[in-house]
């Protein structure tokens, strides 16, 4: 700590240069926090996938429908505990920006297979009574300020309602649900499959995918294989995957987010390495006589090297802390996209590690040069 005033004074020797370098690093770490936060939030969905469940889709593509008649055959596969289905509805509320993950299901079957979704029994009954009923996730209710009993309309980008010829589907909100252990899952809504099936203009009697719970997760692979074998060489061949695999392949539809994030950050930090490295080199070059004086006073080569490295560390750590703090403040604004409001702690921890590595990488060469500085030559201006 006694060297701190010396480090601090060295850092602010050229105020404008330090401010600009600091800002560059702050922006880089803000980007790091935001992108890694989004990536981590998406990965959280994958990591939270239930090991007791399989997702069965068409072998051709996720968008290819499967006949509802498959349900009994899947249920009869040994080891299967329950079967539920869902359909991709593709809805938004009022504006295409307000995407709503509304899923037509048989609520009783669905809750049996996905017990993490908690709905009050009277609200389940209300949904079963009301053909156009809708059970909304607690976060979505809060987002739009909806109330139970309110009538709303969701616009489907896929399905046309044959009774009025529009893509607007009216719903009565009859209840709310909460998803245990993953707040991001509370952004969705469930409604009756029969409502969709009776009113849609095509695809009647089909589902989007099956959700299958298994009795023993160790048998998941064999059960998935047995389901796919059962429909092999039929018109509707299936592809059964664990929920985790399904979540990963679903995410890949948007692109390899992990790769994109790493590629952007790689480019940013590669540039930053040269920018900050150059600043540190310049800073040390300008201070050659001062560093020589420190050595004259009795500061050893190792101590002078440590001082230069510590200065680089101070700059990078302060800037990284500011950048990550800003990311923490801004990240909640992405709640509607990523479903979570806090930057995961491991993102902050990896940010701290990156800051230290950046400091060592950018301060290493100037520190080495400072360490090798010969006093007599430096004082003579050679």
């Amino acid at each position, binding site marked *: 700590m006694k060297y701190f005033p010396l480090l601090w004074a060295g850092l602010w020797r050229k105020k404008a240069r330090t401010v600009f370098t600091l800002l560059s690093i702050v922006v880089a770490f803000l980007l790091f926090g935001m992108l890694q936060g989004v990536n981590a939030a998406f990965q959280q969905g994958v990591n939270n996938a239930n090991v007791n469940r399989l997702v069965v889709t068409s072998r051709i593509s996720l968008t290819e429908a499967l006949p509802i008649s498959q349900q009994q055959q899947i249920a009869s596969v040994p080891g299967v505990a329950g079967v539920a289905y869902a359909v991709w509805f593709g809805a938004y509320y009022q504006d295409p920006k307000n995407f709503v993950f509304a899923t037509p299901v048989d609520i009783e079957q669905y809750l049996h297979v996905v017990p993490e979704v908690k709905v009050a029994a009277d609200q389940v009954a209300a949904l079963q009574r009301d053909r156009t009923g809708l059970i909304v996730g607690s976060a979505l209710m809060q987002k739009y300020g909806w109330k139970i009993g309110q009538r709303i309309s969701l616009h489907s980008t896929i399905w046309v309602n044959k009774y009025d010829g529009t893509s607007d589907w009216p719903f009565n909100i009859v209840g709310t649900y909460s998803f245990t252990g993953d707040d991001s899952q509370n952004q969705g809504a469930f409604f009756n499959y029969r409502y969709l099936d009776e009113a849609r203009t095509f695809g009647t009697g089909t589902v989007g995918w099956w959700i299958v719970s298994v009795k023993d997760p160790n048998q998941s692979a064999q059960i998935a294989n047995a389901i796919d074998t059962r429909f092999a060489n039929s018109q509707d061949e299936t592809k059964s995957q664990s929920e985790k695999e399904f979540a990963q392949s679903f995410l890949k539809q948007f692109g390899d987010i992990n790769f994109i994030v790493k590629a952007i950050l790689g480019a940013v930090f590669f540039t930053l390495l040269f920018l900050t490295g150059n600043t540190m080199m310049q800073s040390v070059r300008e201070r050659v006589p001062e560093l020589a004086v420190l050595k004259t*006073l*009795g500061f050893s*080569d190792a101590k002078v090297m440590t001082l230069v490295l510590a200065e680089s560390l101070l700059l990078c750590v302060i800037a990284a802390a500011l950048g990550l703090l800003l990311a923490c403040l801004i990240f909640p604004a992405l709640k509607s996209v990523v479903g979570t409001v806090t930057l995961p702690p491991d993102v902050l921890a990896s940010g701290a590690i990156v800051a230290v590595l950046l400091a060592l990488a950018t301060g290493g060469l100037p520190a080495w040069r400072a360490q090798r500085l010969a006093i007599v030559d430096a*004082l003579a201006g050679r």
Partner: protein
Amino acid sequence: MNDIVTLQGVAKRYTRGKETVEVLHSLDLTIPQGDFVALMGPSGSGKTTLLNLIGGLDQPSDGEVRVAGERIDGLSGAALARWRARHVGFIFQFYNLMPTLSAQANVELPLLLTPLSKAQRRQNAQIALQIVGLADRAKHKPSELSGGQQQRVAIARALVADPTLLVCDEPTGDLDRKTADEVLSLLQTLNREHGKTIVMVTHDPKAAEYAQRQLHMDKGTLVPGNVP
């Protein structure tokens, strides 16, 4: 009186490209404790090289350098740095203060290498600034001080760790006559009243008059008749 500096058969050679130049030739010298020596001579005569060897900033190519009771010509870089911190105070022609630090912080720099507490460091630096008559300028940055004041801060920095020896390289080379006289009087006081041994390189015969002895160098050797 004890000898504080003893040089025996010291030579110094530099290699620049393919050429090797011998700057000091088999030089012998002793400086007793409490002496104030002015090293004079034309440019390129080896004054500063000799001063660097005495101050432990450089190593001789041949010979033995013994300062403050320790043979320093064979010491490693780290050991030599520790030795300098303990035994030598340096004063340069261009002051060489840290421009971003206050006068007080500049004077405290050598004390960072000691186990003294922050309060003790501050107190010692204040005393050193009082000795050079700049206690009231403690918070000023070097750019806010005149040349003479900056050199006095540099003297305070050289004094603060109570070194065995003060080494001065053209300490008045950048000052006007009046300010130079003030600085030289201060060095003389440090020598006479505080018993500091001082070795000073200078071109200026008037500056040399403040010393107890004058040694003249020419072409890498001490001119006979001046060597004790």
